[in-house]
C-alpha cells in the first residue's frame, strides 16, 4: 500500500469505518511508515485530552432562564386578559390559539416566518404593527432573564444578570430600575461595579442619569465611587459637577477618590480655579 492510499483511508479508519481486512492492510502500512503512523497516533493522543467540567452554576442559570421564560408566558396571558381584547388582528383571530404557550409559539413562528416572508405579510396589510409587536415579545424574554438573575441570592448569579442586560437592545423601565437598584443597594462591590458599567450604555435615559447621581451620593466603596465619577463625567450630565462637589465635601473621602473628583471637575471645566471664584 502506498501513502497516498493510506491517507485516503485514514479518516474512515479513525472513525471505525473500515472493514477488518482494510483495517489490517492499513495497519500493516503503519508498521513500515512512520509518517502515516504518527498521524494516526496524533488522533489517538487527541482523544486522551481531558476537559474541565462546567461549574454547577451553569445548571442554576439555565433554571433561572427557564423559569423566567415560563413566568413570562403566564404574565403575557394575564396582560392579554386584563387588556380586554387581544392585539391579534381580525384575519388571524379565527385560528389564533387560546393557550398562552401556543400563542407565544405562534408569535415566535411568525417572527421567523415574517423575517423571511415579510413582503407577503405586508401585502396582507397588517404586517408592520404585528411584526414589531412580535419582536417585542422576543426582546422581553431577554429582559426577563436579566431580571430574574438580578434577584438571585448568589452574587455571581446577580453578576450574570447584570451582564445579561447587555443583550437587551432597548430595555424597559423595569430592567433599568433593576440595574439602578443594583448599583445603589447590592451588597457586593463586584456586582455594583458591573451594574455601573452596564448602565453606561443606557446613559441617554434621564432616569438612568438621575439614578447614577443618587447612587454616587450613597456609595461607600472607593472602587464604585471612582467608576461612577468617571461615568458621570463622561456623559457630561448637568448634575455631575454638583454631585462631585458634594462628594468632595465629605472629609472622610479616600485620597484616590478625592483626586478623581478634582480631575473630574477639571474635565467638566469646573476645576478649582473656575468654581472657587
Amino acid at each position, binding site marked *: 500500500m502506498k501513502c497516498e492510499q493510506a*491517507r485516503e483511508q485514514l479518516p474512515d479508519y*479513525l472513525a471505525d469505518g473500515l472493514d477488518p481486512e482494510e483495517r489490517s492492510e492499513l495497519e500493516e502500512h503503519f508498521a513500515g511508515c512512520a509518517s502515516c503512523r504518527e498521524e494516526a497516533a496524533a488522533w489517538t*493522543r487527541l482523544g486522551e485530552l481531558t*476537559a*474541565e467540567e462546567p*461549574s454547577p452554576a*451553569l445548571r442554576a442559570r439555565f433554571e433561572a*432562564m427557564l423559569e423566567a421564560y415560563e413566568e413570562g408566558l403566564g404574565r403575557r396571558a394575564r396582560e392579554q386578559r386584563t387588556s380586554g381584547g387581544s392585539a391579534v388582528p381580525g384575519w388571524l383571530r379565527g385560528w389564533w390559539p387560546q*393557550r398562552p404557550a401556543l400563542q407565544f409559539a405562534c408569535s415566535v413562528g411568525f417572527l421567523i416566518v415574517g423575517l423571511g416572508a415579510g413582503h407577503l405579510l405586508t401585502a396582507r396589510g397588517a404586517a408592520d404593527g404585528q411584526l414589531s409587536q412580535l419582536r417585542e415579545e422576543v426582546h422581553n424574554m431577554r429582559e426577563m432573564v436579566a431580571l430574574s438573575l438580578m434577584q438571585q441570592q448568589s452574587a455571581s448569579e446577580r453578576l450574570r444578570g447584570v451582564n445579561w442586560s447587555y443583550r437587551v437592545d432597548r430595555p424597559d423601565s423595569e430592567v433599568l430600575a433593576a440595574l439602578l437598584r443594583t448599583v445603589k443597594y447590592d451588597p457586593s462591590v463586584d456586582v455594583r461595579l458591573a451594574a455601573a458599567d452596564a448602565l453606561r450604555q443606557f446613559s441617554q435615559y434621564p432616569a438612568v442619569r438621575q439614578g447614577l447621581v443618587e447612587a454616587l451620593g450613597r456609595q461607600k466603596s472607593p472602587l464604585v465611587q471612582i467608576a461612577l465619577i468617571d461615568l458621570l463625567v463622561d456623559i457630561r450630565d448637568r448634575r455631575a459637577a454638583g454631585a462631585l462637589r458634594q462628594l468632595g465635601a465629605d472629609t472622610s473621602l479616600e485620597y484616590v477618590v478625592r483626586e478623581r473628583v478634582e480631575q473630574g471637575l477639571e474635565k467638566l471645566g469646573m476645576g478649582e480655579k473656575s468654581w472657587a471664584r
Partner: protein
Amino acid sequence: MNGTPSVDSPNDEVLMLAVENGDARKLAVLFDRHHRVLFHFYLRLTGDRDASEDLVQDVFFRMLKYRQTYRPGMDFATWMYRIARNARTDYFRKRSREVALEEGWDAAGDADAAPGRGLEARQEAAMLRRALAKLPEEKREVLVLSRFQNLRYEQIGELLGCDVGAVKVRVYRALRELREIYSQISGRKAS
C-alpha cells in the same frame, strides 16, 4: 455518548418537538443530556471557561427562541450544533476581541495535571493543546467535531455545508497540520 437516552426516556427529537409544542420544561432534559458536551465543544474551541458557559446558556436560550425552526425528522444534534456555531459567531462578533487562545488553553490544561498521570504524559498533553490552539480555527473545529464531539462525518458535512468526502479531506488535512505543529513544538522533526 452523552445524548444517548435510556430505554424509558424519549429521544432528543421527541423532546424537542414537545418543547416546540409548548412544553418548555422538556428543555431541561435536553439541557441535562447535552450541556456538558456543548461546554466541552466551546472550551476546546476557545479555551475560555466563562465564554463557554455563557455560550452554552445562549444555545439553550436560542433553542427556545428559534424552536419553530426545528422540524420533525431533523437530527437534533446537527440542529443543536448549528445553533451552537451561530451563537459563537455572534458572541465573538459582539465582543470583537481576539481571545487569547494560547493562555486559555494552557489554563484549560489543568485537567491533565491530575495526580496519577506521569510528568511526560502531562507535558505531551500540554504540547498537544498548544498545537491544537495554533491550528487555524476551521481546522480546529473540524477536529473538535469529529474527535471530541463524536459527530459522524455525515453530520459534520451537513453542519459545514459540504459532502462527506470533503469532510474526510478536511479531517485529514487538519490532522496532518496538527501533527506538523506538534512536531515543531515538541522539537521532533516532522517527516
